């Protein structure tokens, strides 16, 4: 960097503050691991993480209304980090959802020592492993989570492919680790982590390859520049197509779209449930935030080229997720396939481009709350210390634990998209915008898929209330205020966004314009 550039470089520190705060807290968390006695680490780590995420949320809110690049040289914007309406809204959503997820990570009452292993390096099912079953889980999960959150926050404001790639890896790597840290059924957990890592690495390779192609086509990795090149570049368009295809594959992998979804059920099932909640809510927001930006800002000019294939993938995802979900017998797998189907609905929002940015963001927020609460409830229903994930074990839960069953019923109805829940308002808004943009076919498939998907959800409801409980039915462990507030906040948001969604609709409406489009 020469002197002139140095002199002219302007950095919007306030704009970067949310990410800096979380990043600093993550490093602080590492120091806590070294400096604070083991007994007190949980409290300190939780407090640190929650405080950092709330501070980040405040910083995001203070940045509201911004529409500028975070770095500029003598008035020329550098596209690497772009602070605009959608980016800030999604950052805020990630902050809120990850606060809730952190509370779930910190839950220790439902099972002794929590869901996380104390020493991940101990060989699974060995004698040493059995003896550490009683110990408290490792608290490194908090800094790991914060690193992932920084990555997600960066992913949604990244304005060029390179920054985006860094962010992608930054939130993926800690998640690979977190997936393997379950205390119980460790082999499945480790298998899930390894699968996720291998396939994630595979997908990243696609990303880098696609990025190279697009650079070759446009001569830049800046999204706005790529868009410009889509109109004016003299390079062979083949480069563009391969680039778009590779990039899409990598990002649709993270978003869990069919046929790049196969990892989802295995990883969702194997990972500790709080991590699954984090993935279902926050990673979904980040992945679709990135997709929204790439397609709206970078590939809008070549929309005609990718429209057909993305439509096919959306249809496959919506129908696939719904049809797979129908025969699931495991509640976590059912929620995993539900998350895949929801990725399909969200793809409608991507395909619709600018008209549906607001409703897509609303959908992400609404779905995030519902999903996190649903996984939180899953973590409460236990056979002894282990989660009772097989659906047959949930039969008649309404008789023994009507409160929990009622909460889960609300969440199922929300996922099924019934009125007076956020599921309805979100789907309605998204489908209405897509209809307005002429995507009739996609909306019809979306509605059909919702109808199919309503079946497994409602079957759970029937199971909860109308079946006789087994004599050794699982117990609902009383949650500490941690998991309790996760459920409460999730359900409250689900209902409020269903009954009075006006305020959030106003916010997403104001925040739905990308910079540089």
């Amino acid at each position: 960097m020469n002197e002139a550039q140095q002199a002219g470089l302007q950095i919007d520190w306030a704009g970067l503050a949310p990410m800096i705060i979380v990043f600093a807290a993550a490093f602080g968390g590492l120091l806590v691991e070294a400096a604070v006695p083991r007994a007190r680490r949980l409290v300190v780590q939780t407090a640190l993480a929650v405080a950092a995420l709330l501070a980040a949320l405040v910083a995001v809110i203070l940045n509201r209304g911004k529409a500028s690049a975070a770095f500029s040289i003598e008035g020329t914007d550098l596209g690497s980090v772009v602070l605009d309406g959608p980016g800030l809204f999604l950052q805020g959503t990630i902050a809120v959802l990850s606060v809730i997820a952190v509370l779930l990570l910190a839950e220790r009452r439902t099972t002794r020592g929590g869901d996380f292993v104390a020493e991940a390096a101990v060989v699974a099912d060995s004698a040493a492993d059995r003896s550490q079953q009683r110990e408290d889980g490792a608290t490194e999960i908090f800094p790991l989570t914060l690193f992932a959150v920084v990555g997600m926050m960066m992913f949604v404001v990244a304005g060029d492919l390179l920054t985006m790639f860094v962010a992608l890896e930054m939130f993926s790597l800690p998640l690979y680790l977190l997936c393997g840290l379950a205390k119980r059924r460790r082999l499945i957990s480790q298998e899930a982590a390894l699968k996720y890592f291998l396939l994630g690495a595979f997908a990243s390779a696609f990303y880098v390859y696609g990025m190279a192609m697009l650079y070759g086509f446009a001569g830049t990795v800046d999204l706005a520049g790529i868009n410009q090149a889509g109109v004016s570049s003299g390079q062979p368009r083949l480069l563009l197509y391969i680039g778009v295809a590779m990039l899409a594959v990598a990002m649709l992998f993270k978003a869990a779209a069919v046929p790049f979804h196969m990892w989802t059920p295995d990883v969702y099932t194997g990972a500790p449930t709080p991590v699954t909640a984090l993935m279902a809510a926050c990673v979904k927001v980040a992945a679709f935030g990135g997709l929204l930006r790439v397609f709206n800002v970078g590939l809008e000019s070549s929309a005609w080229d990718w429209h057909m294939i993305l439509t096919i993938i959306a249809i496959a995802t919506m129908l696939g997720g719904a049809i797979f979900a129908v025969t699931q017998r495991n509640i976590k797998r059912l929620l995993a396939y539900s998350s895949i189907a929801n990725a399909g609905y969200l793809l409608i929002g991507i395909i619709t481009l600018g008209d549906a940015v607001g409703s897509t963001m609303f959908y992400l927020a609404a779905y995030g709350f519902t999903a996190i609460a649903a996984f939180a409830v899953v973590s409460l229903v236990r056979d002894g210390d282990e989660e009772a994930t097989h659906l047959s074990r949930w039969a008649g839960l309404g008789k023994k634990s009507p409160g929990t069953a009622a909460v889960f019923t609300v969440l199922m109805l929300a996922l099924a998209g019934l009125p007076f829940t956020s599921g309805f308002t979100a789907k309605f808004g998204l489908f209405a915008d897509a209809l307005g943009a002429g995507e009739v076919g996609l909306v019809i498939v979306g509605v059909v898929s919702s109808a199919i998907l309503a079946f497994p959800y409602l079957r759970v409801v029937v199971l909860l209330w109308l079946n006789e409980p087994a004599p050794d039915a699982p117990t609902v462990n009383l949650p500490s205020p941690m998991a309790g507030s996760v459920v409460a906040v999730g359900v409250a948001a689900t209902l409020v966004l269903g009954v009075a969604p006006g305020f959030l609709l106003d916010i997403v409406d104001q925040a739905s314009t990308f910079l540089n489009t």
Partner: protein
Amino acid sequence: MHDISYAPATGALAWTWALIALPALGAAVLLLAGRRADKWGHWLGTATIGAAFALALALFASLAGLDDKSAHLDLFTIISVGDLQIDASLLFDPLSAVFCLLITGVGFLIHVYAIGYMAHDAGRRKFFAYFNLFAAAMLVLVLGGNYFMTFIGWEGVGLASYLLIAFWQLKPSAATAGKKAFLTNRVADVGFLLAMFVMIGALGSVDFATVFNGAESLSTGTSLALGLLLLAAACGKSGQFPFQTWLPDAMEGPTPVSALIHAATMVTAGVYLIARSNVIFSLNADVQTVVVVVGALTLLFGAIVGCAKDDIKRVLAWSTVSQIGYMFLAVGLGGGAFALGIIHLLAHGFFKAGLFLGSGSVMHAMNDQTDIRRFGGLWRVMPWTYATFAAGWLAIIGLFPFSGYFTKDPIIASAFAREGWQGWVVGGAALLGAALTAFYMTRLFVLTFHGPRRWTEDVHPHESPAIMTGPLVLLGLGSLAAGGLMASPVTTWLTPVFGEHHEAHGHLTHMQVTIATTAVVVLGAALGWFLFRGGTEEVPRAASWPVRFARADLGGEVVNRGVFERPSRLVAGATVSMDGRVVDGAVNGLSAAIGGTSRRLLQLQTGFVRSYALSILSGAVIVVAALMVVVVQ
């Protein structure tokens, strides 16, 4: 016609909402407090209605002091869609004022009576909660400032009525009667809903003022439809032909319910609706004719069936059907007769409530028996009940100088005043009805209180406690005097609503009608007296076909069964088999197909990373290929 407008509520009248809030609060407390309120619940329920009565009196006094005699109160907006705005508004005008006084006044007395009547019932608190709920809903009905509010009250009283008829829900007959009342009312309520849709469609509003002022601009067809739809709703709630069948069955409820809801107040809602909508009904002569025909037909229908019944409450119930027929006749005649209908309604409220409570007192004494064939000679045992029942009897048959004379005679006179042959027919029907009323009421009275004792062996009749006889006495006094006292002042009071009252002149002079009525009434009563003073058979015996026909409610049930039940069963059966074979078949087939597809596709989910990676790779190949296809095109 001058514009109708309502002045905003000021001063004390701004508290009109509290009239509804008081009993509503009582109902809420009683229902929410649960068993904790068992000890004092009935006192609270009675106190709220008493307070509402005091408030109604105060509001009545304030209204009397106003020049424009109306108070309109907007509380909040219920619906605001496009141009349509529906407010929660209340209207306190002379018409709603007299209804409020009737509901809270007579209602209070019946509440007091019920404290004694329900003393040994485990569900007394629940009973008073429903009673309060009913009062609140009825007050919404008459205070509503637009048709929508009236409709809310309309449905509310329907609900309360259902809950109270089926109050002893473990008795199958009570449960069935509640269901019957509810369903019959629902059918008629469709008329109300459609009427509101017509208003919204034609006039864009359901506000009284807007609808009445715009009514003149309606086409004949629209005003005919509007009138008939409102009439259908009114007939349902008031048990008028062809919806009369639910009302006698409603006697399955506790007797105070019959007195309050199915005699004094709720069943008069239909009369209120027509009176309130007098502008609409006056517009279209055809609608008026239909109302008159319905009224005349029902008053005869009720009176004839009333002659054939042996159940004390059912006789009174059919008599209610018949008396409301008189009111319909009056409001159907239009003009000055509107006020006559309302006056008869008020007087009827007193004497019918008194009669019902009296019958309750008798049932109390006779181990809840209701068969008048097994009564007789009770006058000696229950002097208070006897005296008050006698007052009600004198009032309903309309002998000078008792209530009915002042309220029913003018209706008969107005009926004769209708032009052409219709006047003779309608007037004749009303006159015949009066004779029949005198006959069956005398029969009821004589068989119950006079003649030889035909009691079953295990009964030991006794007079009811003071808490029951007290209200009886007050209602008895009201029965005797109300008509004479109210006839003239109430007509004047209602002038702002119905316009100036003009004496009707027609085929017969008022004096001729009075003489004729008095003659047939005396004749009917005398016939009843002489036929039944010696008692009657203790069980009904075979009778000629007219009697059998009357005992079978003039075929009302047969018609219902043939016209409604049987076709409904056929349609339901067809629908069920259609649902079972075609719909379920399709749904089950589809779900089996989806489930099968799901299982087959899930075999791809092997758990091996290599096959997952292959899936990603093939997906990538497809994506690239698809993009190429677009290029080639």
